[in-house]
């Protein structure tokens, strides 16, 4: 049997062309795409590992600074614990020579907006009427400001007695006190 060389050559060239276009080139494209996918995945995996190493470092740092973290937890407790708050305010008022005439929760919000940024801080606002001397009020305010928990007195109003005797007699004070939880 003899082969017809020119036809065979032409046929083989045609087959080569068909193979290149329909098999080799698509596979080459898949190959390059897979290579870039693999590089991305490897980079992602490396970044994830580095991320968790950083997390572990930061976690250890948090542990080292546990005292400072506790201060933040005290200032912004996870749970508002209203009963504890009421007791604290009453206790501070009593220690500073003030009588709490009434105390009520006037507002409790779930989140606050500061400078256009939403944060997770919840505001708790108390209104209270106190009876005592002006000096006691000053000491009470000072105690609240020095407290490990953050308190802000947003409004204060009071009336004094007659001129010249205002600082020594008992007076009624109305205060609005704001505190925070997380």
């Amino acid at each position, binding site marked *: 049997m003899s082969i017809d060389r020119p036809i065979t050559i032409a046929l083989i060239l045609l087959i080569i062309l068909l193979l290149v276009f329909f098999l080799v080139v698509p596979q080459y494209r898949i190959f390059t795409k897979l290579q870039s996918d693999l590089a991305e995945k490897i980079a992602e995996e490396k970044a994830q590992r580095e991320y968790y190493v950083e997390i572990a470092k930061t976690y250890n740092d948090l542990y080292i600074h546990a005292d400072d973290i506790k201060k933040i937890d005290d200032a912004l407790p996870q749970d508002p614990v209203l009963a504890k708050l009421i007791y604290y305010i009453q206790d501070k008022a009593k220690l500073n020579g003030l009588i709490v005439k009434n105390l009520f929760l006037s507002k409790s919000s779930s989140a606050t907006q500061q400078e256009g940024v939403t944060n997770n801080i919840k505001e708790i606002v108390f209104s209270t009427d106190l009876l005592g001397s002006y000096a006691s009020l000053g000491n009470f305010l000072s105690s609240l400001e020095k407290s490990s928990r*953050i308190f802000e007195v947003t409004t204060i109003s009071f009336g*004094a007695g007659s001129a010249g005797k205002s600082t020594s007699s008992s007076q009624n004070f109305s205060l609005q006190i704001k505190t925070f939880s997380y």
Partner: protein
Amino acid sequence: MDFSAIFQLRTKKFWWMDVILYFVISLLVATLICYAIFLIKNSMINDQINDVNLALQRVGTKLQRDQEKTVINYQSKIGDFSNLLKNHEFASNVFAFMESQTMPNVWFKQFSLDAKSNAVQLSGESNDMEALSRQISVFEKNKYVKNIGALNSSLGESARIQFNVNIVLDQNIFGYLVDIATVAEKNIPLDQDLSQQIKPTGLTVVAKSTSQIDLSWVAPANVVGSPILGYKIERESPVGGGFLVIVPNTGTAITTYSDLNLEASTEYNYKVSAINSNGIGAFSETASATTNAEAVVASSEKNITSFHFLLNPEVIGLIDLTNNIVTLNVPHGTNVKNLISSITVSNGATILPMSGVSQDFTSPVTYTVTAQDGSAKSYQVKVIVANPPEVAIKYNIPVILGVIVLIIVIIVVIVFVLFLKRKAKNSI
């Protein structure tokens, strides 16, 4: 057109025609081999991607995810807390301001502060119009007063001037960095002779605890025709650092005061001056006291706070304080028989084996941390060596197989071509 040339190509036998035929056959084989190589390579890369995906899923252990949650939570909390502190307001600064700015012969009967709008509403009385005018002038000149509005005054029943005034304060007065001493700018002092006469005497300061000093003094004998309305107390710490006002006006004639929330083992100097309707008198002599020292309590803290291997890159241990286990993942090929650790423990605690000493970690090593109070806690330190990279093995087997297949294909093609040639020769 002459087609005889094409006909000759078909009938005659040219040596170069054989060369071209063999060349295109080789090309066909090469194309098939290329296709096979790409198929094999793609399959390998797919396997590698699957491996990396699996590794990605295994990256965060439960402990690591818990730590991540804690860190993210605290990151957000610390950010919110610092924002809150930045905007924190101190209403007591306004009191210090009011006390320092109130002029003699002026009394405030009603006070109302709204920290949101920085507004203070005041109602009061003054002896005469001149005293009121002087009071308003003092407010106007103060840097913390932004605006004075709605001022009205009238002659009251007791021949005194009754007035209402609204003051808008500068937001900075509520700030933490505003020193009360700077807010409380000086009142107009009494003239020298009068001020010396209302000077408190016999100031005694006694340390009561680690954080409390009690002050007592003797009221001025002569109050120059006006009763004592309160006392101004100043404190100096560190000694030589200058006195700062701690109480601008006690608001009472009581001659005792307890200074709270002080630092332990710290020396404080105090001086006191009396206030009456004429103004503030001279300061008493300075008295000094040192708060009590804190009793030293041996700490019971015995935690490992960090555990590192000094490798390149550094390997950081995951500390599980609940189960007292430290886990370290080291790269494949690390010599675990000779690893030097860098360990930190709670303040005052010690650890054995010591930090910086070479250890064999082929099996878990027990470290014992001893607290200041003598109590001890044991930690198991486990080292996990990463598996050898599977990619290298997987890469070699298909390549070897590919090469073998390629050689077989080439041999088969050559044999087939030779067979056809021989058959053609025989037939001639």
